[in-house]
């Protein structure tokens, strides 16, 4: 719900209890509802878990956040690989596990399927077990 409408409802309930709700309050609501609303955007988070178990530790992570790209548009260099402004590399895992990310509101949209996981009993290849998560938000950032 739009935050301004939430505030209006809280105020109006109080006014209703006191018998103060008026036509002008309804006009104010109409104005609020007519205002353009920011469309939520899809943020994508890759988390590489050390096993298919969603409680396993995380080995790698990558956030693709469209709001970051828009906010930084004036700093971009035309040749940027990602058309993104630079951000420092990190060694701070954003979530200890998939379960922690899900608890924070991320929704899993792709699970690793063991039969598709590249397997050799002798050689390593791609990183761990990749889960792809999404969050729809008008804000941004990993948390």
């Amino acid at each position, binding site marked *: 719900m739009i935050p301004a409408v939430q505030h209006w409802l809280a105020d109006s309930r109080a006014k209703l209890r006191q018998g103060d709700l008026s036509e002008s309050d309804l006009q104010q609501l109409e104005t609020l509802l007519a205002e353009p609303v920011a469309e939520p955007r899809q943020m994508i988070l*890759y988390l*590489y878990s*050390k*096993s298919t178990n969603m409680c396993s530790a*995380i*080995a*790698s*992570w*990558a*956030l*693709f956040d469209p709001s970051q790209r828009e906010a930084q548009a004036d*700093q971009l*260099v035309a*040749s*940027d*690989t*990602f*058309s*993104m*402004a*630079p*951000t*420092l*590399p*990190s*060694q701070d*895992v954003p979530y200890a596990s998939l379960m922690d990310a899900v608890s924070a509101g991320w929704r899993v949209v792709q699970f690793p399927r063991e039969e598709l996981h590249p397997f*050799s*009993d*002798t*050689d*390593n*290849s*791609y*990183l*761990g077990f990749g889960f792809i998560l999404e969050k729809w938000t008008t804000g941004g950032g990993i948390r």
Partner: protein
Amino acid sequence: MNVVQPSMDDTQVMAFVSSGYVIAAGVVPDELNRQCEALPRGGMGDFVQTAEFRRGVLLNPAVAGVVRSLLGENFMVPTMAHHHLYEGPHAGQTSHFDGLTESGYGVTHLQCYYYPQAVEIDDGPTMVLPGSQYRLVDREAIAHYRDILGQLSLTVPAGTVVLTRYGIWHKAGPKFNPRRRGMIKFSYYRTQSPSRDWPGASAEIPSYRQPQRHPYVTEVEAYRDQRRCTRTWQWLCGLDETATVDHGERECSAIPLNDLELV
């Protein structure tokens, strides 16, 4: 015959087998650093084959001693190099390795990064993933990887040469300023069969000891790393004759050490 003395011992060679890199920090003379720092981006042409560059960089004892340890006698000395130069801020490259995978157990190709200027964290340092040199992947399929536990930003003093096993995952890190950040890349190749002829504490070849477990690996990957590194160690000691894989790039970009007329 041009003689270069090996400079690594068993422990250092084992560390390289595990991590895939050796850092020779601040070893190139300042005067040559300043000259190289001013070079334009792109291929370096004949400058690579000047006596000054060979003496100061390619055959610098701190660099060539590592090459001699890992590639044996009469290794191929680079005749080509490329100056990767960044100036404006940028988001950084994606993780990759160059060219085709050299997937064998051996060490036949050392790819080197020389930094003529100091590199700080906001200068867009090269980043490497220790231990990734043995992973067999399609490099375009790892382009979405970003932060990985154990990744290393090569923040180094001026005149540093980083020697890597070809195939290590690397990328130019994010850059926040307009300072020039150059990196001159070149490669050495093996010509001789491997043998443990670096300075050793004992005549008996020690068993491989894994010096570290990389923080991003899974349980079973750690076992595979141990096995793979053991075979690479044995290969370097001349105990494992498993054929290794390279792609013949040496033919056009390097010359045997003994064919050089050093002045």
